């Protein structure tokens, strides 16, 4: 593995059936360009067993030395309690092992980032069983996600029919990678 001097931020989100990973190297003052790598795979119940293998392969495929990781961002849900705990536990271990901070990021915002276009307003939703969804309303501006209506568990009927809805796709773990760089606190709001 070649050592890469540029700093990298790792994002991971396991609150949905998807394992979403992102590696981000921000544009530097030295003129280096902004680089983002993404990987998402629907692992379902294989998440706990496959997570580290997927992460290892992803990081190696992009020639990023683990020691180049400067912070870890992890999706804190809402979503599957088990999935959220698997992700946060792994992130805490990675953070301790690498000696870097662990930040938390909302999964509904990551989903909005994955589905909305720049400037677009819409809902993102994750199934919460028994006719309910975790859902919130967001606006995407560049790579930022503005919260217009806080994400929470609500009856599916509360999402207006015909509204722009992002659901069933992988969250964009770039959102968690950006939270890592921003040093967002790790607050397991859900699970």
């Amino acid at each position: 593995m070649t050592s890469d001097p540029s700093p990298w931020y790792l994002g991971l989100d396991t609150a949905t059936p998807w394992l979403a990973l992102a590696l981000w190297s921000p544009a530097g003052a030295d003129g280096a360009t902004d680089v983002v790598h993404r990987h998402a795979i629907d692992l379902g119940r294989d998440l706990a067993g496959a997570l580290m293998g997927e992460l290892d392969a992803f990081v190696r495929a992009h020639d990023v030395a683990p020691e180049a990781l400067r912070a870890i961002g992890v999706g804190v849900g809402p979503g599957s309690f088990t999935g959220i705990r698997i992700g946060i536990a792994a992130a805490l271990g990675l953070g301790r092992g690498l000696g870097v901070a662990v930040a938390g990021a909302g999964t509904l915002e990551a989903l909005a980032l994955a589905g909305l276009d720049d400037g677009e307003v819409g809902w993102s939703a994750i199934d919460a069983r028994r006719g309910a969804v975790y859902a919130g309303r967001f606006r995407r501006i560049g790579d930022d996600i503005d919260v217009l209506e806080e994400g929470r568990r609500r009856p599916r009927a509360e999402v207006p029919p015909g509204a722009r809805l992002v659901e069933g796709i992988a969250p964009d773990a770039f959102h968690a990678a950006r939270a890592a760089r921003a040093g967002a606190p790790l607050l397991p709001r859900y699970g």
Partner: protein
Amino acid sequence: MIVLGIDTSCDDTAVGIVRDRAVLSNVVVSQAALHARFGGVMPEEASREHLGLIDEVATRALAEAGIALAEVDAVAATYGPGLVGSLLVGLGYAKGLAWGRGLPFVAVHHLEGHVAASLAGGGLEAPYLCLVASGGHTVLFDVATPGDFRRVGGSRDDAAGEAFDKVARLLGLPYPGGPSVASLAERGTVDGVPLPVPMRAQRGYDFSFSGLKTAVAVLLERNPEAMIADVAATFQARVVGSLVDVTRRAAADIGRDDVVVAGGVAANRALRAAFDETGLRLHFPAPGLATDNGAMIALAAAARLASGRVTPGGDLGVDAAPYQPLGEGPSRPRDATATATGRS
């Protein structure tokens, strides 16, 4: 070799550090107070607590051992059996830690950890017979060669420690029931009340404690004036008698002179006294290692690493296995070759 071991199989968040067979630190943060009001462990609460505690407990274990993370040679964690939500926290954290440091990761069966706790510091090698008796398990293994666990018997219903918990509740004693029943039993008379002897006529090596527990419930219902100290003493004598008699018979039949007694129930003084009268060579867990802890997982991993009984490439691909019997190996994801490899 320095190994950091994690156990979060039930309601204790536990991290221990060992150097070969020596325990350097063993931090156990019990959630007993949290679960006491329910009279047993609430799985969702346990998992959430583990997540909030695991990093702090690991950090404390390193500090108490006087070891820097950079000095650790391998990381280990329990993969099963246990509560799945709890297992996943310790297992996930350990795998992240190992990958982050570029260290080998060893997935350890919880019961192999309990057995390793009784071998700590000593020079016992296989063959031996092993009784594991705890709140979650009551199993008898024959270990003919190192790491080769053959189940010869076990409880058909409640684990011995579970029976103590349930009877404690019937007697109005606090959770966990082992120490509280044992303490009350010291003031009571064995056979002061009539209670049945479990599985008296069997030829195999099994245990059964739920009938005994029901007998206690019926006795208390029919005779509310019964001296509860006598109930505790008689109940404890029945459990101890069953564990010792079956183990002694199995040792004689199989031809084992050494018996390892592991698990939280091994801390019971009446059990130790009864085993002392059998003439067997006994190996009890070292102080502080009887109940669930991280050092026992580290000890088991250190033994595996020392003897080469590890998976090539490590165990990063191992999933939590809540019902995994000992001796059948870790469960693996479907594509084991792609995910079992450690970091390169």
